């Protein structure tokens, strides 16, 4: 270690790897992984989300899973919950293609893709 800058850059790098264990204040993407979701391709959607986040280096976005919310005919579903917001955004019939748009438009730029939302209260 020759300088403070070196330590700082090391910290920044290590922090990214640990972001999962901290409250980052960023949105969380929840993939619904009930039997219905999995049968409709939720697993592929999840993998796409992960590879998309990885390629964009967005380590502070948490991705978790949950069960079936009851809207089986709209699976695969994903929920984006933002800290401080009461109502989360629920996207229906997500595909490996449109999930990329959700990440770009909603997660990165903060503009929900309204046409794919199923939330009754908008």
């Amino acid at each position, binding site marked *: *270690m*020759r300088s*403070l800058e070196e330590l700082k850059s*090391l910290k920044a790098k290590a922090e990214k790897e*640990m972001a999962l*264990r901290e409250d980052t204040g960023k949105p969380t993407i*929840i993939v619904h992984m009930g039997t219905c979701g999995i049968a409709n391709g939720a697993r592929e959607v*999840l993998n796409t989300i992960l590879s998309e986040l990885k390629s964009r280096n967005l380590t502070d976005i948490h991705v978790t*899973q949950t069960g079936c919310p009851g809207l089986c005919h709209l699976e695969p579903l994903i929920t984006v919950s933002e800290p401080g917001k009461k109502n989360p955004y629920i996207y229906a019939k997500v595909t490996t293609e449109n999930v990329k748009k959700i990440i770009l438009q909603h997660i990165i730029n903060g503009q929900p893709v309204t046409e794919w939302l199923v939330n009754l209260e908008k």
Partner: protein
Amino acid sequence: MEFYRSHVLVCTGTGCTSSNSRSVISGLRKELADKGLEKEIQVIETGCFGFCNLGPIMVVYPEGVFYCRVSQDDIQEIVEEHFTKGRVVQRLLYHEPNTTVKTQEFNDIEFFKHQKRIALSNCGIINPEKIEEYIARDGYFALAKVLHEMKPEDVIEEIKKSGLRGRGGGGFPTGMKWNFAHKAQGDQKYVVCNADEGDPGAFMDRSVLEGDPHSVLEAMAIAGYAIGANQGYIYVRAEYPIAVERLRLAIEQAHKMGLLGKNIFGMGFDFDVDIRLGAGAFVCGEETALLTSIEGKRGEPRPRPPFPANSGLWGKPTIINNVETYANVTRIIRNGWEWFASMGTEKSKGTKVFALAGKIKNTGLIEVPMGTTLRTIVYDIGGGILNDKKFKAAQTGGPSGGCIPAELLDTPIDYDNLIAIGAMMGSGGLIVMDEDTCMVDIARFFLEFTQDESCGKCPPCRIGTKRMLEILTRICEGKGVPEDLENLETLAKTIKSAALCGLGQTAPNPVLSTLRYFRHEYEAHIYDKKCPAGVCKSLLSYKINEDKCRGCSLCARNCPAKAISGKVKEPFVIDPEKCIKCGACMEKCKFGAIERK
């Protein structure tokens, strides 16, 4: 860098390791690989969470789900349900005692809620075997700050103002100690870390070393800069193999990164740390004995003055601090003395780690602000007494400390209050006792320990503790005489004032404090030849209640001494001559017919 969506932290502290967390980890890794999830879910070995009676403990991030008592048989279910389908495995969640509530996230658990973690802030969060994780949590920034922005005098002033006092037991102000060593003349000075944790039941130092070894290394380097030393020694018990291993690894990693060694941060400061293993003698936790042991000699104390700050290791100025003290130093430097001094009581600042043990529901390691009452610790954090029995006393400070009775449950715990009520902070062992504990027997137990551990150098300790133990043993055997109490007190006072080191000077404390608060128990043993708690075997007698006995012969068949006889379907009798008072019959009897008096 791999992109993981979940981090699974499994405790690999000594507690969880002994309840098989290693096999849980290997099983989990295999199961994840079988399901093709090994690139999504990362398994991380971490340090102690403190909730040792629930081990092995597993925490799943980002949700923060807290699983306890995870066994190999649970792994398949966790992987299938939680990691594949996102459904939390309810049955493995923490179950709050006294309620039916199951708690999912670990910040909501009562045990953690009342705690304030400073020294333990990284334990159970980082992987102690990766220096990067320590750095991610601001590790080594305190050292950088000290080397770049502060003069040695500033560092000492900061520690002084924070009000930090030695966490090893004595409670001497750390800043003052550093100042003495800073002012002492000498071409070579040393920084020593006392990790010779010897109190029965205390394991906070071990947990810090196992869970956050770099915090100790960093603080030692800071201390080295403050006093002008470039060599440090950690004296750690050989009985702590995991701690020793992690320390070795931590020193190696810090060296590789140039955070120890020559010219740290290019600021011209050199510092190195070596490990010295202790053979587990209790007296080596005493500072002068510890230094003698590092020098390669027999671990015996020597008179002070001269204090180690002036003449310590090999006669050179030396500071010696406890593991927990060092763990606080880095946080004080980073957050400022005002932050640290804002916690605690007037004369005891910050927090203290306690090892909760004994007859309490939640045993484990806790950290609370100074001034927290014993009631909060026992009932809110500890969850109350096992089997809902009555609280009788809490013992702090191990063999050097004393017992705190129920009427003092609301005393705010800090250094000075504990001394005032005849106990001692000690290194932080806290043993809770219920109504079934005999206080005379407890005093005898601790005396047996100190007498055994006495190094034998000074007569007050060598002979005095032996005589005290003889008297206590006699009382427990029902052979006590009225003069015994007076003799105990005289001996205790003499040893306290005449013994050479801390071990001897504090050895009579358990006797004095139990005499102070539980004198009636001593008197019952001596005058009535009774043990009120029903512990001292010689004073007990077992009898079969003829009205309750159905003559099933179960007791007679289980008696190891063949002391019970009788005819089936008629009341049985115990022969007091043959009875060894093991209590096996009482345990076995289904009708509650056996009485102990």
